[in-house]
């Protein structure tokens, strides 16, 4: 009970966007995330790494409320500079606060064109309801036109505007990853969560991705949290990294600090005898 009182009065220092406090979740007897705490600063690219099954995606799902954590709080600084606790909020409300995610295996809609898939990302921007949509009122038409323009701009930004009318069903994995990134950008997030953005990409595509992620941070004025297996990418673009193993924190620090950390090396390579 006393904990809830703290929630309301929680003050984050001005440069922090996301604060994860003592996060824990267990599935049956298995502790997938165990008392994990870290924070993400404004305009920071923050990496979450760990061996397979370390609980990285589970942490994501706890932040975005796809899973309800058993314990712990997730404080988030919204677009309007208000600090809120995300825990307990409905999943579909999270994006309105300024936090948006992509998925490990792309979750796009096959029957929709690339442009329409991006417009799905702008869902929260629409103020008109379904009755105005049926009647195609002036306001609804204008809204649609504005969002369409914006979607084309985002597609141009990602270099895939020539594919806007193609159905998502027929495109290559590398392109789809970029479309999904574009969909996330449509909501003007101030924290973008990327779940393995480089999975399934070849080397050139991964290099381009690194460039794109940096550009997004600067141009969209957004912080980025990413889970990734490609160590080269992570070490290359992240400002700070949090390494976890079996749901427990190993270390937080700059890429250099993480690389030289004994615990991290042990978790990845095994113990030296």
């Amino acid at each position, binding site marked *: 009970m006393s904990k809830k009182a703290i929630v309301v009065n929680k003050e984050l220092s001005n440069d922090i966007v996301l604060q994860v406090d003592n996060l824990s979740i267990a599935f049956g007897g298995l502790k997938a995330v165990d008392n994990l705490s870290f924070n993400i600063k404004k305009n920071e690219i923050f990496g979450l790494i760990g061996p397979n099954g370390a609980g990285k995606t589970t942490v994501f799902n706890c932040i975005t409320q796809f899973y309800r954590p058993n314990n712990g709080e997730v404080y988030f600084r919204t677009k309007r500079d208000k600090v809120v606790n995300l825990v307990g909020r409905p999943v579909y409300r999270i994006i309105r606060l300024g936090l948006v995610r992509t998925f490990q295996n792309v979750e796009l809609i096959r029957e929709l064109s690339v442009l329409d898939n991006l417009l799905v990302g*702008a*869902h929260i921007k629409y103020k008109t309801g379904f009755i105005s949509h049926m009647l195609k009122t002036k306001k609804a038409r204008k809204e649609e036109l504005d969002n369409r323009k914006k979607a084309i701009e985002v597609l141009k930004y990602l270099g895939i505007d020539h594919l806007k009318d193609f159905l998502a069903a027929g495109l290559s994995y590398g392109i789809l990853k970029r479309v999904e990134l574009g969909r996330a950008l449509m909501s003007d997030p101030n924290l973008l969560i990327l779940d393995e953005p480089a999975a399934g990409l070849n080397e050139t595509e991964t290099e381009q991705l690194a460039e794109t992620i940096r550009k997004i941070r600067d141009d969209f004025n957004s912080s980025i949290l990413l889970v990734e297996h490609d160590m080269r990418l992570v070490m290359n673009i992240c400002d700070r990294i949090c390494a976890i193993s079996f749901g427990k924190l190993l270390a937080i620090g700059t890429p250099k600090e993480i690389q030289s950390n004994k615990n991290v090396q042990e978790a990845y390579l095994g113990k030296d005898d």
Partner: protein
Amino acid sequence: MAIISKKIIKDIFFKTSNILPKPYVNYLLFGIILVILPYIVNGSTLLTIGSVIVYAIAALGLNLLLGYSGLISLGTAGFMGLSSYFASYLTKDLNFPFFASLLISVFIPVILGLLVGLVSLRIEGYYLAIATLAVAEILRRIFEKFIAFTGGYVGKTADYPNILNVFMLDREGTYIILVIFLIVIMILTHNLIQSPTGRALLTMRGSDAAAQAMGIDILKYRLIAFALATLYASIAGVLYVHFNELTYPTIWNLGLSLNILAIIIIGGIRSISGTVLGAFVVYSFSDLILKEIPFIGEIPGLSNIIFGVLIIVIILFYPQGLIQIFKNILKSIFIRKDVKASE
């Protein structure tokens, strides 16, 4: 000669579609064809095509629900029946004007539908099928037993609509009202599926996770889809009773709900024109074509066998429905010509 006439058809097709926003022209042209149709084809076609239109409207609603939100309702007939009884009761017993009765008769099933949806959709999508099936069966029993209101097995009558006390419609006039309702509903549905709401429904069907991550409230959009399906079914019910002048319990059984489902599968899921095509196949094929063929037309239950085979063939080879074959033919006429011309 053939080439020239094809060119003319093509020109007319593309020019008219350039003047007005394309889909609207197509729908309006289709409406005009529907109005003329009974006068070209002889015999008692007006009743048959009128029924086709009524069932097409209900099927459009179900297509919105099944095709776009991935949910299924087995209570279409129940909701149609409920609105038909209300329309009959209000216009005949209470002397309500047509439009006022239409509003009330449609409003009540939609509210009932929303309640059923609120209870069942919270759990899992497929509970809607079970809940609507139960509600439809309960409604059918009520139609049979609540004689004071429904007339029991004999049913209840209604007149052709009397619009604003100015137009006392006959059967032909009522038929035109049916066509107008169908065309307006086709256009509104067309607008909806191309709008953010349509995209939200498709997203929900494709991936629950993506939908929620993009801010789509799944319960809300499921309820919208189901409410619209109920709305269309209720409008169809009201139009049915005014066009046929009669409603009785045995029409509104599970078989009808399944036939409306068959319309969608045969015609084309997620296709407006496909739904209408499907309604024509299911509800006019046996009356207008099969019965005209000597010997074969006299075999009882033949149309059911044909539909059964048709559904299997379509699911196996044309999952997009008959409309896909239709579109392929149109494409081969118009597009191959262009390629040849450019060579």
